[in-house]
C-alpha cells in the first residue's frame, strides 16, 4: 500500500517537472495529455488507498525520511493516509484530473500552454503534501506550496496589470495569515514538544485553556487567510483574474478548503476550546451572508461564483466551529464537485463569449450552448440545495446542526443565506442562458465548447447529483472513525419536516423570484441610470461594502507613505550612508596604508619594528593582567561590573 501512497503523492510532481521541461517552448498537445495522465494515475492510486481504508478501517503511515533532527526537534517527512486525508485526496485528485483534461481544451489557444500544466500539476503536488502530511511542518510546506502555485496561476497572464496585482494581493494576504499560522505551529511545538499530529493532540488535554486558546486562534488565522474568511477575504474575488480552470480547481474546490481541512484536522484541539469554536461558527455564518449579499448585484459571473465559494466556505466553518466536523468535511466534498462544475461551465461561457464576463451582455445563450446550460443549471440546483442533489444533503445538514445545537441566530443567518444563494445562482443562470438575446448586437457569435471538455465535466455532474444521497451514509461511517461521531437528528418528526420542507420552499421561491426578475424582456444592459443602481444598498454591495476601498485608503496608503518616509529617511540617510561610510573608511585606509607596501626594504624594516613594539606591548599588558588577575577582578567587582 505504501507504494500507492508514493504514487499518489509523486505522480503530480513528475507530471509537473515533465511539463516544466517544455515550459519555454511552443504549445505541445502531448504535454497536456501526459500531465493529465499523471494526475489520473494519482487519482487511481488514491482510489486504491480509499478502498483499502474503507475495507480495513485502518490508516497507512509512512516516514519517507528524516527532514530535521536537531536536539529535541525531530521532524520527518512523514505521510499519513487516514479517513480524513483520503477524502481530501480523492476530492483533490478527482477535480484535478477533470480540470486538467478540461484545460487542454480551454487553454487551447494560449501561448503558455505547457507552462500552465507545469504550474497546475505543481499545485496538485503541493496540495497532496498539505493533506497527506502527518505533521504540522509538512502541512506548512504544502500550505506555502499551494500559496506559491496560486500566485503563479493567478498571475498566469502576467502581461495583464490587473492579474499581477491580484496575484500579489493574494500572496500578501496569505502571508499575513501564514504568520499567524507559523506562530500557531511554534506554540504547538513549544507547548507539546512535537509537531506530529497524533502526539501533539494527545498532549493537548494536559495544557491549560489559555494556551490552547492562543494556539487555536493562531492556527485559525492561518485558516482564515487560505480560506479567505473575513477580513482577509478580498483576495479571492480578485483571484478570478486567473484562467478559469485555475479558479475551478484552486479557488473553489481545493486550496481554499485547506483552511477547513486544518480546522477539521485539529478537531481534537478545537473540541477542547468550544468558545473559539463558537467564534469560528459565528464568523462562518457572518461570512456566508456577507459574501452572498455581495454576490447579489455583481456583474461578473466569475466573481459571483467566487463570492458564492466564500459563502459556502462560511457554511463549512460554521459546521466545523459547532463541532460537526464530519458535516464540514462532507460539505467540503460536495461543494468541490458542484462548484468546480459551475466554474467550468462559466469557463465555457467565457470561451464562447471571448472573455466577456458581464452576464447582462449575454442572454439567450441557452439556444447555442444547450449542454453547458444543463450542466450549469444542475450545478446551481445542487448549490442551492434542492432535493435530491448533493447540496441538499450537505447544506441542510449544516442548518440542522445549527438548529439542533440551538444556535438560532446562526441558523437564521444560514437559512437566509440559503435563499440568497439560490437567488444569485439563478440570477446569473437566467441572465446568461435565458431571456432576450443581448449579445448578437455586441458582435458575439457563441459556440459550444469542445466535446471532450463537456465529457470531462460529466463525472462532476454525476457526483454533484448523486454524492449527497449515495455517499452520506458511507462517508459518515468512514470519517467518524477519526472525527466525533455526532448524529444530527431532529427528534420531533413534525419539526424536522417543517424546517426541511420550509427550507426547500424558501429556496424554490428564491429561484422563482430570480427567474421572474431576470427573464423578462425588458432587461437592459445597466448603464448606471436606473433608480436601483443609484440606491445606497446597491452601491454598498457593488463596492463590496467599501472594504477594498477601506484597505486601500487606510492601510495601503499610510503604509506606502510610511515606506516612502523610511526609504528616504532611514534607508537613504542611515542604512545606505553607513554602508557607504564603511566602504569609504576601508577605501581611504587602504589608500593611506598602501605606502607600507612600497617595496622599500627600509620602510618595511620600520614597520616590522613597529609591529614588534605593538606585539610586545600586548604581551606586557596581558602578562601583567594575567599576573594580577585577582586584583583586577576585585577592582572591577568593586566598580560594579
Amino acid at each position: 500500500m505504501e507504494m500507492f501512497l508514493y504514487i499518489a503523492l509523486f505522480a503530480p510532481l513528475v507530471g509537473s517537472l515533465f511539463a516544466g521541461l517544455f515550459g519555454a517552448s511552443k504549445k505541445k498537445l502531448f504535454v497536456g495529455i501526459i500531465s493529465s495522465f499523471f494526475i489520473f494515475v494519482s487519482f487511481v492510486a488514491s482510489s486504491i488507498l480509499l478502498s483499502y481504508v474503507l475495507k480495513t478501517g485502518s490508516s497507512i503511515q509512512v516516514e519517507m525520511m528524516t527532514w530535521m533532527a536537531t536536539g529535541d526537534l525531530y521532524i520527518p517527512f512523514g505521510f499519513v493516509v487516514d479517513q480524513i486525508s483520503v477524502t481530501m485526496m480523492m476530492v483533490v485528485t478527482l477535480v484535478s484530473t477533470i480540470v486538467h483534461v478540461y484545460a487542454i481544451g480551454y487553454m487551447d489557444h494560449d501561448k503558455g500552454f505547457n507552462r500552465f500544466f507545469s504550474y497546475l500539476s505543481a499545485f496538485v503536488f503541493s496540495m497532496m503534501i498539505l493533506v497527506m502530511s502527518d505533521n504540522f511542518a509538512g502541512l506548512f510546506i504544502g500550505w506555502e506550496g499551494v500559496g506559491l502555485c496560486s500566485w503563479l496561476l493567478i498571475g498566469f497572464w502576467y502581461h495583464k496589470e490587473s492579474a499581477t496585482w491580484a496575484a500579489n494581493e493574494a500572496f500578501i494576504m496569505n502571508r499575513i495569515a501564514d504568520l499567524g499560522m507559523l506562530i500557531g505551529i511554534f506554540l504547538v511545538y513549544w507547548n507539546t514538544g512535537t509537531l506530529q499530529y497524533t502526539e501533539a493532540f494527545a498532549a493537548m488535554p494536559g495544557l491549560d485553556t489559555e494556551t490552547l486558546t492562543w494556539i487555536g486562534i493562531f492556527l485559525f488565522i492561518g485558516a482564515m487567510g487560505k480560506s479567505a474568511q473575513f477580513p482577509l477575504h478580498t483576495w479571492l474575488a480578485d483571484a478570478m483574474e486567473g484562467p478559469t480552470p485555475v479558479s475551478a480547481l484552486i479557488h473553489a474546490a481545493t486550496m481554499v478548503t485547506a483552511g477547513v481541512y486544518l480546522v477539521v484536522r485539529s478537531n481534537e484541539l478545537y473540541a477542547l476550546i468550544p468558545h473559539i469554536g463558537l467564534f469560528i461558527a459565528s464568523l462562518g455564518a457572518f461570512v456566508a451572508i456577507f459574501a452572498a449579499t455581495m454576490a447579489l448585484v455583481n456583474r461578473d459571473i466569475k466573481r459571483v461564483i467566487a463570492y458564492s465559494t466564500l459563502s459556502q466556505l462560511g457554511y463549512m466553518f460554521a459546521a466545523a466551529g459547532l463541532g460537526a466536523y464530519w458535516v464540514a468535511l462532507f460539505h467540503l466534498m460536495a461543494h468541490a464537485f458542484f462548484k468546480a462544475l459551475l466554474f467550468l461551465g462559466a469557463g465555457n461561457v467565457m470561451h464562447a463569449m471571448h472573455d466577456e464576463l458581464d452576464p447582462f451582455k449575454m442572454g439567450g445563450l441557452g439556444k447555442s450552448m444547450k449542454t453547458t446550460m444543463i450542466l450549469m443549471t444542475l450545478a446551481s440546483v445542487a448549490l442551492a440545495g434542492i432535493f435530491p442533489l448533493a447540496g441538499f444533503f450537505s447544506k441542510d445538514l449544516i442548518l440542522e446542526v445549527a438548529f439542533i445545537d440551538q444556535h438560532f441566530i446562526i441558523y437564521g443567518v444560514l437559512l437566509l443565506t440559503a435563499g440568497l444563494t439560490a437567488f444569485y445562482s439563478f440570477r446569473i443562470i437566467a441572465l446568461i442562458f435565458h431571456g432576450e438575446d443581448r449579445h448578437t448586437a455586441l458582435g458575439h457569435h457563441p459556440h459550444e465548447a469542445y466535446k471532450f471538455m463537456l465529457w470531462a465535466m460529466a463525472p462532476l455532474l454525476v457526483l454533484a447529483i448523486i454524492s449527497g444521497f449515495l455517499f452520506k451514509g458511507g462517508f459518515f461511517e468512514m470519517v467518524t472513525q477519526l472525527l466525533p461521531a455526532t448524529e444530527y437528528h431532529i427528534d420531533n418528526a413534525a419539526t424536522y419536516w417543517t424546517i426541511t420542507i420550509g427550507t426547500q420552499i424558501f429556496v424554490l421561491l428564491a429561484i422563482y423570484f430570480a427567474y421572474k426578475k431576470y427573464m423578462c424582456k425588458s432587461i437592459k444592459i445597466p448603464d448606471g441610470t436606473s433608480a436601483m443602481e443609484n440606491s445606497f444598498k446597491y452601491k454598498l454591495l457593488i463596492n463590496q461594502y467599501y472594504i477594498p476601498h477601506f484597505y486601500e485608503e487606510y492601510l495601503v496608503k499610510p503604509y506606502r507613505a510610511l515606506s516612502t518616509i523610511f526609504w528616504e529617511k532611514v534607508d537613504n540617510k542611515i542604512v545606505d550612508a553607513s554602508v557607504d561610510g564603511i566602504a569609504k573608511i576601508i577605501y581611504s585606509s587602504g589608500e593611506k596604508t598602501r605606502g607600507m607596501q612600497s617595496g622599500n626594504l627600509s620602510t618595511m624594516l620600520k614597520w616590522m619594528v613597529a609591529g614588534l613594539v605593538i606585539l610586545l606591548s600586548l604581551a606586557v599588558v596581558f602578562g601583567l593582567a594575567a599576573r594580577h588577575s585577582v586584583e583586577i577582578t576585585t577592582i572591577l567587582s568593586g566598580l560594579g561590573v
Partner: protein
Amino acid sequence: MFEAIAFYLFAFLTIVMFYITVTTSQALYALTALAAGMIFISAFFFILGADFLGAVQIVVYSGAVMALYAFGMMFFDTTRDLKEKQGNKYVVVGLSTIAAVLVVLIFMAPIISENITALYPIGDGGNTQEIGMVLFTKYLVPFEVAAVMLLVAMISGIVLAGKKMDESLTLQSEEEINEKASK
C-alpha cells in the same frame, strides 16, 4: 670598586663605538668602530667571569667576522658616499627605544622577580673547563648542528661570492650582460 670603574668605562666606550658605527657615513670608520666595540664587549665577559666566551668573542668577532667584512668591503666602492635619505629621526629612535625596553622587560622581569635555580650551576673548576663539560654533554647535539650550520654557511659564502670571480658584471657593458643572460 675596580669592577664598577671598569664597567662604566667599558660601557661608555662600547656605546660610543656603536654609536659611531650607526651614524658615520664612512664604511671604514664604521667597520673600525664596530671591531673596537666587539673587543670592549669581550671585556664585559671577562668581568663577568665568562673567560671562554670573552675569548670566543675576540676570536670570532674581532678576528673572523671583522676580517670577513674587511675582505667583503674590498668588493665595494667604500669611498663613495652613499646618499642616505633620512626619515623622521624621532620615530626611529622612539620606536627602537620602546622595543628594546619592552624586550628587556619581558625577558628579564621573571628572572629578577623569581628565584630560579640554576640548571647547570657554575662549579669550582675553571670557566673553560666547565663550559667544555656542559657543551659536550648537555649541548652536544646543538653544538654539532651549529658546526654543520657553519660549514653550510662557509660553502654557501664561497659559492655565492666566488662564482665567476674572474669576470665583473660591473665592468661589463649592458649589452654584454644581456647577451650572457640570453644564452
